[in-house]
């Protein structure tokens, strides 16, 4: 019996080491796995990450936020409305088909049909094929962000997705609630092909042998992605060596990971701003500029970053993070309790008032704790806040219904550009145009609206930047909303995984280029 046990154990150990020795497999533990294989079925961070692994965009952001050629090798503006793209030749799809201009046209058309993406591509008209490897992408009006939007165009294999499946449904149908061909099949040009997928359990991706980018340093032959939703379990899986890479790392475990000699911690500044909106329609007090300013002065957002976020965020005084066109160096965090009290007294509210607040408790990093801190900080200027937190599943309906005077929301710009923040968060709410869709503060300033719209079509980048910075200054002076911080992205990995070069502001780890020693 003892012998038997010894043999079994030895075999187990050998087997364990055996799998370790095949070092080109990267085991990844993320908080969620991609919801489907169809890149156009849902616009979410997870789906875009997936798109970068299995598909390839026309262009993508480099770490310094410059635009990097991918399937488009170069581009030029032909006129105010048109940008001409020269496409890479000799690129193969996973199906074996050859990539050409028709696939770009097909993809753009499909994007315009997708419920989730059509808003982003509203300004785009049809693409015009010049020849097999040249294509003109046009917009309805001059659009400064045309090139940036092309980071969302991940060409799909038009031949592969054409025709009908067994049930008679077109293969390119975008189906929210399955089944559909595109939900379970993929053919992109990306570094990995999906070898095996069981939703919510695991996804195995193999390196695509005909991948065009032979210059990529990436040496990982296979990625096994497992969703591990529970924070503590995800960290334990990394520390015990069951996975090689995790994201996100919960702030309370940063020290633990930094201390461990076998693993490294990486953080990267992100662009998601966390704010609280003050509803001027519900609360007459919030219409008074001084009251709003007092609230901003009373919030110690640097303290929140240090104590609650454990330093894993950047305190904010505005919407645009550093590096964005609208970033205004004057708009810095301004915690000053004395000033806040003076402002409240000047506004005639020295004795304060009572108001309500809602916040999600599983949407942003430590969202509930941040909201609780707000309650404590505002109590110091005699504003009694009645806080209610809830899971995100219930939160957004309440948010839209504007059930509370103060509402917490985080926002990441889809375009990695300042204008997007204003369009959704501070422009006057307008049901017809859709602007101000998430402006539950009902802040409305015609000057901000005018500047935001003007910046959309301003193609002179310096002028445009000045406009966007002016918007930030107006919002800052007006205390249009309460800024907290920009969340950092966090990753943990074993020492032999070279994570630093592949992470970026968008939280799209480019696994195609990851090196494992």
């Amino acid at each position, binding site marked *: 019996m003892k012998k038997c046990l010894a043999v079994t154990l030895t075999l187990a150990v050998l087997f364990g080491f055996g799998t370790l020795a095949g070092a080109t497999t990267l085991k990844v533990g993320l908080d969620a796995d991609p919801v489907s294989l169809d890149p156009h079925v*849902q616009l979410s961070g997870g789906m875009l990450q997936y798109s970068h692994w299995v598909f390839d965009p026309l262009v993508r952001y480099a770490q310094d936020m410059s635009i990097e050629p991918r399937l488009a090798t170069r581009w030029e503006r032909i006129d105010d409305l048109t940008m001409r793209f020269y496409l890479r030749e000799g690129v193969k799809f996973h199906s074996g088909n050859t990539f050409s201009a028709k696939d770009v046209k097909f993809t753009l058309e499909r994007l315009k049909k997708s419920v989730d993406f059509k808003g982003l591509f509203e300004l785009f008209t049809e693409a015009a094929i010049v020849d097999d490897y040249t294509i003109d992408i046009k917009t309805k009006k001059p659009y400064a962000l045309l090139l940036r939007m092309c980071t969302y165009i991940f060409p799909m294999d038009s031949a592969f997705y054409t025709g009908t499946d067994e049930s008679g449904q077109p293969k390119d149908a975008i189906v929210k609630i*399955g089944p559909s061909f595109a939900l379970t099949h993929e053919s992109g040009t990306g570094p990995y092909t999906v070898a095996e997928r069981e939703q919510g359990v695991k996804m195995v991706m193999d390196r695509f042998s005909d991948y065009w980018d032979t210059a990529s340093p990436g040496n990982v032959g296979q990625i096994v992605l497992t969703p591990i939703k529970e924070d503590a*379990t995800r960290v*334990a*899986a990394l520390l015990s060596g069951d996975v090689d890479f995790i994201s996100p790392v919960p702030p309370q475990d940063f020290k633990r990971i930094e201390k461990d000699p076998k693993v490294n911690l990486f953080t990267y500044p992100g662009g998601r701003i966390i704010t609280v909106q003050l509803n001027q329609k519900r609360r007459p007090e919030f219409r008074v500029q001084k009251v709003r300013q007092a609230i901003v002065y009373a919030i110690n957002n640097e303290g929140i970053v240090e104590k609650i976020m454990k330093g894993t965020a950047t305190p904010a005084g505005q919407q645009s993070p550093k590096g964005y066109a609208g970033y205004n160096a004057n708009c810095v965090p301004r915690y000053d309790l004395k000033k806040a009290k003076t402002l409240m007294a000047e506004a005639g509210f020295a004795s304060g008032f009572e108001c309500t607040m809602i916040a999600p408790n599983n949407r942003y990093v430590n969202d509930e704790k941040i909201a609780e801190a707000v309650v404590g900080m505002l109590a110091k200027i005699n504003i009694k806040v009645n806080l209610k937190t809830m899971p995100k*599943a219930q939160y957004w309906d309440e948010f839209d219904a504007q059930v509370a005077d103060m509402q917490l929301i985080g926002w990441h710009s889809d375009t990695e550009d300042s204008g997007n923040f204003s369009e*959704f968060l501070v422009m006057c709410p307008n049901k017809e145009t859709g602007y101000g869709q998430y402006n539950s503060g009902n802040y409305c300033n015609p000057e901000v609206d005018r500047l935001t719209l003007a910046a959309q079509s301003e193609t002179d980048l310096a002028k445009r930047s000045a406009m966007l910075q002016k918007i930030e200054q107006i919002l800052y002076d007006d205390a249009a909303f309460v800024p907290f911080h920009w969340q950092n992205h966090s990753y943990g990995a074993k020492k032999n995984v070279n994570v630093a070069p592949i992470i970026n502001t968008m939280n799209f780890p480019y696994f195609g280029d990851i090196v494992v020693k």
Partner: protein
Amino acid sequence: MFAFVVRRITQALFVMLIISLVGFSIKNKIGDPIRDLVGERVTPAERELLRDKLGLNDPFVTQYLRFAKNAVQGDLGVSFFHKKPALAVIAAKAPATLELVFGAALIIIFISLPIGVFSAIYPRSAFSRFTMAFSTLGVSVPVFLTAIVLIYIFSVELNWLPSYGRGETVSLGGWDSGLFTVDGIMHLILPCFSLASIMLPLFIRLIRSEMMEVLETEYIKFAWAKGLHRKRIWFIHAFKNTLLPVITVFGVQIGIMFAFTILTETVFQWQGMGFMFLEAVERSDISLLVAYLMVVGAVFVVVNTVVDIIYGLVNPTIRIAGRK
């Protein structure tokens, strides 16, 4: 007898009807499934369109009748998140949960029996006192904490056992089993111990007190007087009678253990029904939730009905009492 069986089955059907109604009326309170299906940028108008397409805007009665009609034919709807028939999703997740409960049950049996019996025979020994004190502690520690502590000790610090998931599974005619691979068994150990930890102290105490009671009875005293060997008295005569109430309680507790799998599965990323349920709540996957309620409800109703009918066969007074 025939009338009795018909009556019980009618009652069972009625219960299923109530379950479906309750499930259906709470589903709109869980959250909005559309929110989870689309990005945050999608306009309210687009969401409304999608809602119309999925029939979520129809009046309650229309929705319910449509659901009931399909349910009678064995179709409980399509899961919004998994994009597959809800019943298929549940069926695929069931083996993981069943194996987890099975493993935990084995642990409970093989640990609680010897310890319970020992501490009944030698109630004053140091070991018995220790286990009794320890089991009080065991009852009060939540399973969530037990699981995390186990992971930190055995996966992170000692690196003996894997920290999450099911490991390598073998498919046996649609049943994905982790019981036939070394890797699968290794993955089972920690979750099973965590789950067993809730019931283990209870059973040790139950077996001990039952056994001590039996040891005081007249027939045991008579056996001693008769000069039977002590092993025969303990393990044959006393033990057999101890087991009867224990088995009854065990049957009830297994059901409760299924409820605790929700927590255990969440910590260990164990892909079973409990994990699926929690995720469905978080994602407001209401069609899957209703289907889950129906399936679990059906299992309990069927088991209870069969038990009632068997009772009726065995004990006629139940049939008669019901007639009045």
